[in-house]
């Protein structure tokens, strides 16, 4: 059927363009499933038919992703309803709470999670319509297609934020936000026919959604590894001749550990992007040295900005790594320069725009920026600027440095302290593997600074030595009041450190030096 008869843009257009350009190219590899762009398009049409007949006003997906993710993204778009992938790692109660916030959804669920949620009966009170993923896939293969196009300002994807500091918020990304992001940052059909991307970011994260859209648009085969395992990641790079991949910091750490055993070269890999949360510089430097032929990319973005808004390129990495000029060396810890379709401003707490070298809150503006939440509305200001709540600085050359969330700022004796300042110093100490710095209530200072350190393997560090290490680099008021040791830091699936859990854990534990 002709799916092009519409006057407005939908993310479905990205699949249309990819299909008309090269219908027989392999677009998706996921376990035993291999789909060409035409097969993906046909399944999305059939899936849209199933969704349309369900008369649901939204589609929710609970599962590990793989081929189901691009299929459900495009099937929902073609049926003209919003799509919400939900974090399958949440508790049964957590999942049901999120589903209850969606308007009359059709729930598509991997069989293993259906069992965890108590089967169809267990979900009956939460969602009226539930279908198991394999059945949806099988039925999409021979369903009568439907294709109804959405208004560009209508919502294409709704994602729940991870809620590390508060209750999850439902971020609404419109078709226009998402297509603007993809067409503004990716050159259509620019990938070589032999290019392949290895995707191991979770489906419920903005990076999972953007990976499905961007790689399809670039013409790059998508190889899915839904459950991350470093050995399997390395094996798939070789087996599928993967040329690019995106990982979160915790994955990079585990991959580097495998590579340090020296058995793998990753011969086909040209481009390795990392992001999702801050990466310690020692880890970046180890990765650069282990993989001299790979171009590293640090991508910075938020759910509310439809993924990437700034990029530290492979050239930036190599230049900074080999530089003697301290200003250039420092850039290895930046998130690079904003992408061309994004404007940035750093503002102080009164809203005044700050100049290079000054620290304040990052504001961003562009077509890809949503800044809208279900039940809250838009938080953009009158000129369309979005307050990211990230504390940042721009250097003289426009490189952006992000030092963390404003919510995480420690206020000790009236002085504002970004945890990243201390973390960046501590992680450079050879006895430190990971570190998170948090503020805890303190009768004298308001908040006291606690450094929670995961020691390097086989080391039992001296807390005084670590405090002294910080005191040498930073002002005395920025020295940790306490240093405590842990075997690991609590993180979510994308490597974000769960600071609230650390603070609660410290509150529960007796004070220790």
């Amino acid at each position: 059927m002709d799916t092009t008869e519409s006057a407005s843009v939908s993310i479905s257009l990205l699949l249309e363009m990819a299909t008309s350009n090269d219908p027989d190219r392999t677009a998706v590899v996921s376990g035993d499933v291999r789909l060409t762009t035409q097969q993906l398009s046909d399944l999305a049409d059939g899936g849209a038919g199933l969704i349309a007949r369900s008369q649901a006003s939204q589609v929710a997906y609970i599962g590990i992703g793989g081929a189901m993710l691009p299929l459900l993204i495009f099937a929902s778009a073609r049926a003209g309803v919003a799509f919400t992938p939900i974090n399958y790692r949440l508790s049964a109660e957590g999942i049901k709470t999120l589903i209850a916030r969606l308007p009359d959804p059709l729930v598509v669920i991997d069989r293993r999670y259906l069992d965890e949620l108590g089967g169809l009966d267990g979900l009956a009170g939460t969602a009226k319509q539930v279908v198991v993923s394999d059945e949806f896939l099988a039925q999409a293969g021979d369903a009568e297609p439907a294709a109804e196009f959405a208004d560009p300002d209508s919502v294409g994807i709704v994602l729940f934020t991870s809620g590390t500091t508060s209750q999850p918020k439902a971020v609404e990304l419109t078709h226009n936000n998402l297509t603007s992001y993809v067409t503004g940052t990716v050159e259509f059909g620019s990938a070589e026919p032999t290019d392949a991307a290895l995707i191991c970011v979770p489906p419920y994260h903005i990076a999972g959604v953007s990976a499905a859209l961007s790689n399809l648009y670039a013409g790059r085969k998508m190889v899915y590894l839904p459950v991350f395992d470093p050995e399997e990641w390395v094996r798939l790079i070789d087996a599928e001749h993967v040329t690019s991949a995106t990982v979160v910091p915790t994955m990079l750490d585990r991959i580097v550990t495998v590579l340090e055993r020296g058995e793998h070269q990753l011969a086909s890999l040209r481009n390795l992007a990392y992001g999702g949360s801050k990466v310690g510089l020692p880890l970046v430097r180890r990765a650069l040295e282990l993989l001299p032929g790979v171009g590293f990319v640090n991508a910075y973005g938020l759910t509310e900005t439809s993924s990437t808004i700034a990029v530290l390129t492979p050239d930036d990495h190599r230049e900074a790594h080999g530089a003697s000029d301290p200003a250039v060396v420092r850039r290895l810890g930046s998130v690079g320069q904003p992408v061309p379709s994004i404007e940035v401003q750093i503002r102080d707490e009164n809203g005044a725009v700050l100049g290079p070298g000054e620290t304040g809150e990052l504001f961003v503006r562009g077509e890809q920026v949503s800044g809208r939440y279900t039940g809250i509305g838009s938080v953009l200001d009158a000129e369309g600027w979005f307050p990211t709540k990230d504390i940042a600085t721009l250097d003289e050359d426009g490189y952006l440095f992000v030092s963390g969330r404003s919510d995480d700022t420690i206020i000790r004796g009236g002085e504002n302290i970004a945890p990243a300042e201390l973390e960046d110093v501590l992680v450079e100490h050879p006895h430190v593997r990971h570190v998170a710095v948090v503020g805890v209530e303190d009768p004298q200072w308001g908040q006291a600074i606690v450094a929670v350190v995961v020691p390097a393997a086989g080391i039992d560090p001296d807390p005084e030595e670590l405090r002294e290490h910080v005191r040498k680099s930073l002002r005395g008021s920025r020295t940790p009041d306490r240093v405590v040791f842990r075997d690991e830091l609590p993180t979510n699936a994308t490597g974000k450190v769960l600071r609230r859990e650390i603070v609660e854990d410290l509150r529960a534990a007796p004070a220790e030096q």
Partner: protein
Amino acid sequence: MIKNGTRLASQVCDTQVIVVRSAESLDDLRCGGAPMVELGAERSGELDPAFADGSVMGKRYVDETGAEVLVTKAGAGTLAVGETALSLKEAKPLPASD
């Protein structure tokens, strides 16, 4: 002014575009010598040989006022505002980050 995200089609060739950045100038957007129309609208006329250099799939075209369209289906006509052809936007490619 045309809304960003609007899809338009040539009346005289296969070209289709979406409006990436709108401007007043796009009110007179033409392809192959004839005004572009909304997708699905009635079409008439023939390709003007003076505007038959073609449009390239997936490429962005701009005019000097900052208007920008993206070709979503290639065709034989030249994209123009009035009689002035749009120019191909050369973008510095970004590294893959997804």
